[in-house]
């Protein structure tokens, strides 16, 4: 069976900086793939290139058997790809309900509707007239995920769901993932919280300075191997190498 998403040899540059180099990754239908890595490893860049916010310098992105290259972001949403951006990015001047409704703008058919979202999150129905900015961080993240779901994606990309949230809130959000999967949506998530990612994913890809440093199913990866791949600590690693890692570090946006 061909994978739902097939990224191969992808290279993306931010001006002079090579943000990701020769990254390959695949997501099979019905699976959860997690991309882990330190700040600036290129995780958000990878998602941005898949969603159409960034133009790759090389490589290919094939979704459901068709190339995505050259297609604008909104066309990719219509094809069934939805990215929940880091930092929630709700529309501040829109109410909670209007934020959700923007997700359903294209009217892609599928299991998710406003009613289903309100069933899953009853509190949203009660507070639907509130401005998105009046919600707590965890609530905003839930709304952002719900907005992404309302486009009825076949693949949902989640960027740093746990960022800035209390562990108990993060756990609640992660508890939603099986529910999302059961509706036929596959998941590609980017996560700094490694333990959370290992718990949720079927397959983990670790990025280090824009390259894949380790990959495999969570059970096959030892803690030591992950630590080495995550921080780039080899037995020869010295202060210099760490230093260069710091320099190439950049905010995801």
């Amino acid at each position, binding site marked *: 069976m061909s994978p739902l998403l097939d990224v191969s040899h992808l290279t993306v540059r931010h001006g002079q900086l090579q943000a990701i180099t020769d990254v390959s990754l695949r997501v099979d239908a019905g699976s959860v793939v997690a991309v882990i890595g330190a700040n600036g490893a290129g995780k958000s860049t990878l998602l941005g290139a898949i969603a159409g916010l960034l133009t790759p310098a090389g490589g290919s992105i094939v979704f459901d058997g068709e190339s995505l290259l050259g297609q604008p972001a909104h066309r990719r949403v219509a094809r069934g790809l939805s990215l929940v951006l880091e930092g929630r990015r709700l*529309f501040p001047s829109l109410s909670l309900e209007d934020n959700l409704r*923007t997700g359903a703008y294209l009217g892609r058919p599928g299991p998710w509707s406003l009613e289903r979202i309100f069933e899953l999150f009853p509190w949203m129905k009660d507070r639907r007239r509130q401005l998105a900015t009046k919600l707590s961080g965890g609530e905003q993240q839930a709304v952002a995920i719900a907005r992404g779901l309302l486009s009825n994606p076949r693949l949902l990309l989640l960027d740093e769901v746990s960022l800035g949230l209390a562990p108990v809130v993060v756990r609640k959000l992660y508890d939603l993932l099986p529910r999302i999967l059961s509706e036929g949506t596959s998941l590609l998530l980017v996560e700094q919280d490694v333990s959370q990612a290992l718990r949720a994913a079927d397959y983990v890809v670790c990025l280090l300075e824009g390259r894949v440093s380790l990959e495999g199913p969570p059970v096959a990866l030892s803690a030591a191997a992950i630590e080495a791949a995550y921080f780039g600590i080899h037995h020869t690693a010295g202060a210099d190498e760490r230093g260069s890692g710091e320099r190439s570090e950049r905010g995801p946006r």
Partner: protein
Amino acid sequence: MTWVNAVVQGILLGGLYALFACGLSVMFGVMRIINLAHGDLGILAAFLALSCTSVAGMTPLWAVLVVVPAMALLGYAMQRVLFFRILTASPFSPVLATFGVSIIIQNLLLEHYSADSHSLDVGRLASASLRITGQVSVAYLSLFSFVLAALVLAALGLFLTRTGLGRMMRACADDPEAAELTGADSRHVYGVATAIAFATVALAGLLFAMRSSFSPAAGPARLLFAFEAVVIGGLGSLWGTLLGGIVLGLAQTLGAQVDPAFTLIFGHAIFLAVLAFRPKGLIAGRVT
């Protein structure tokens, strides 16, 4: 009693200013474009209607029905062909580009229609008025343009809050990247926003041309009044724009009541006072 009359006239004039202003507000709110050609577009519409009535022999109503949609189409096309390309270049490129469009429109009009003043003949409607008391009478045309302005603003408000495309327009104003990721084709959304701006300013230009004479150089003054109405009312609030138009209209007619030479000065003074003491406008709204 003449003061009461001035107040009534000022309020009605304000409706027209608000109609001129709402398109300026939409373009700035959604795309951050300050359209310096806004007033000239209204005057362009007036001249197009003049050609429709005098050359093609249409009635003024038919001219409105032809010119307003034509201007909307022009807006959509200009957004796709011109404005969209320069949006990302730098914050100043839209200002320069629309300034250029303003000069081009003025000179084309000058070339084709000469510098003479013209007016759009609407027959008896131009002078017919409703006498309320001895000294207070309301021209039907003023009343009509005020009601039309209020209806257009209400319709625009409903469009922005109740329809998917209108909601997406507000979403694009907040965060274009996130809007694109929820499926908005920003080129189309911006095109529709510009079409709305061009259509409303065309309607305002036509009403203006029915009430008073106009020439190819009349655009910048319209732009200035529209800009003042937006700032007085508060950027991003449609009802604020109506209020801003009314305040500006009132200031002008009351100024004229004191001395006709004070008409414009009073308007500008109110504008400066609002900028100084309430820089967010009378109704500090959300951005479109």
